[in-house]
Each structure stands twice: as structure tokens, then as C-alpha cells.
């Protein structure tokens, strides 16, 4: 399958959930998905379009648009196309369904996105901080407006 047939198959199966799709090149495609049905879209991608490899999952903060994007980069072993799927969430209460039932390796990705951006994953099996200590939960240090950086420069550096 090439990029054209993948995008047409995806928009034909989910005409309402995939509200924006774009073909960057022969191997890169971008699709914007509504956050309510991301699990169904991922299951269709994995079982019918043979997108079996979730390469990574992360968040991007956009304070101007008051949005947080959750981005899934999904690859395949069958065809040379990588799909970048984006879900736009409101910044004050970002919540999205977890895709761990489909892609099990999203477990730690979602924990990391949770501790760094504050994206709350519903029905996640074990949503707790991955790398940061527990007491830093709630600071969301990778958001653009984070102000908790050490204000005093290290003394020995001067």
C-alpha cells in the first residue's frame, strides 16, 4: 500500500474522526484525529492496515492556541509509510483515551507524557510518573509556561 491508498482507506473508514489528512511525501502522511475515537482508529490501523509499530508518542504544547497536541508516530513492517497522527486537546484539561490496549508499548510513552505535559490518559493500566520523582507531579515541566527552573546559577560556574 502506498500513501494515497492508506489515507483514502483511513478517511473512508472514519469520515468524521479523521477531519484533516495530508500526504507529505511518498513515505510520510499526517492525519488529525478526534481524541474521542483514537483507540478505534488505532485498532483499525493495526489490524487492517498493518501499522503494527508505534514508534513513539509524545506531546507538544501550544500556549498561543491554548492546545496540547498528542502525537502518535506509527510505522509499519509491511509498507514503507509512516503515519503521524495528531490529536488536539484543550490545554486546561487535557484528557485522552489510552491506546495501551492496542499498542502495549505506549505504556511508558503515556506515563512520560503524563508527567511532563499533564495529559491524563483514561483507562491507562498504571498511570504514575516514569522518571520524575513523585513530588514533582503537577509541575508539568515541559510545558512552555513552566517557571520552576533554578533561578540561581550554580555558584561554581561563575
Amino acid at each position, binding site marked *: 500500500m502506498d500513501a494515497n491508498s492508506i489515507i483514502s482507506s483511513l478517511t473512508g473508514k472514519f469520515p468524521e474522526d479523521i477531519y484533516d489528512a495530508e500526504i507529505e511525501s511518498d513515505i510520510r502522511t499526517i492525519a488529525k484525529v478526534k481524541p474521542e475515537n483514537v483507540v478505534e482508529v488505532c485498532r483499525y490501523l493495526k489490524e487492517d492496515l498493518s501499522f503494527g509499530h508505534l514508534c513513539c508518542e509524545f506531546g507538544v504544547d501550544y500556549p498561543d492556541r491554548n492546545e496540547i497536541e498528542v502525537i502518535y508516530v506509527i510505522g509499519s513492517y509491511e509498507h514503507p509509510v509512516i503515519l503521524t497522527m495528531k490529536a488536539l486537546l484543550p490545554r486546561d484539561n487535557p484528557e485522552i483515551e489510552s491506546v495501551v490496549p492496542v499498542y502495549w508499548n505506549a505504556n511508558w510513552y503515556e506515563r512520560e507524557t503524563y508527567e511532563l505535559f499533564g495529559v491524563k490518559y483514561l483507562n491507562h493500566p498504571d498511570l504514575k510518573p516514569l522518571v*520524575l*520523582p513523585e513530588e*514533582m507531579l503537577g509541575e508539568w515541566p515541559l510545558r512552555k509556561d513552566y517557571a520552576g*527552573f*533554578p533561578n540561581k546559577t*550554580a*555558584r*561554581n560556574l561563575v
Partner: protein
Amino acid sequence: MDEVEQTNVEQNDVLDVGYTDVPGTMLTDSNAIADFLKKTKIQDVLNWGRKNSLWFMVNAMGCCGVELLATGMAHYDTDRFGIIPRNSPRHADVLIISGYVTKKYLPALKRVWDQMPAPKWVICFGDCAISGGPFYESYSTHQNVDDIFPVDVFVPGCPPRCEALIQGFVELQKKIEAKKDKGTDY
């Protein structure tokens, strides 16, 4: 007879056991001997022994830890200085902070430090441990490690070579010999 027996009972009380009436002896469960020895020339002999057996804790914390491990290998032969890598903090004399100290790792590092028996010394190894290095404004690292640990020697570099660490040990030996180290109370 009753009075004599009562005085014997009082003398056998555990808290009252002392050898103050025996001339020339001291209790070993106090710091009196150590405090007395610090004022004499014997402390020089003790420091000579300590400075020539600086066993360091193998605690690789970052990329500088690779140099730390390589220093303990056979190529540099640190045995000639009495420097031996130890894998247990109970055997170690020197803690080498060889990387950035994150907020999550600091409790574990403090625990390692508390498990080491005194006298013990600290070497800051690498730019990250000294000043934070590239991570000096990070949200997850601790600044100014020398506020937390009594650091004797700073070894700069990114990472420093193994020879630099050996030089740091030699400087620490000089400080111990001059009684200016922070690991012992003088």
C-alpha cells in the same frame, strides 16, 4: 554488714562501671582516645595510613562514570597509590560524585554516603557534579552539590581523563597529610 552490701550493689550498676580509679586507662566507647590522639604525632601516622589506602566507591552516575570505571582497571594500576575500587559502600573511603545529581537520585546518593564508615571523603568528578555542566538550569537536577556533601577535591573536565582523577587522588592525599581535609575532624 548491710551497709557494705548496699555499696557493692551500687558499684555493680551498669551506668556506674568505670575505670577512673585505675590509673592510665580510658573507656573505649568515648571519643577521648581519638580526641587525645589528634593532638599528638600519632595522628600523622594514622593519616599516613589513611592517605595510602583510599578505596573508592564504584558509583558511576553519568558518562564520567566510564572514566571512573576505567581508572579502576588494570591499565592505570592505581594500586600503587593504594586506590582500589570497592563495590560496597561499607568498604569505601572515598565517594566520587561522577555526574549530575538529579532530584530523584539524591536520596540514594545520600544513603550511599551514610553507609560509608568514617573517615570518608568526597571528590566531585566532572563539570556536571561541580556546577551542573550542560544541565545547570534543568528542572530536575540539584545545583551546588558542595552544599550537601563536604567536597574536598574538584576535578574539572567533560569528562576528565583517568590521569586527572588520579591527580585528584594525589591532591586529596596531600590534603590529608596536611590535615586540611574535610573528612576528619581535627
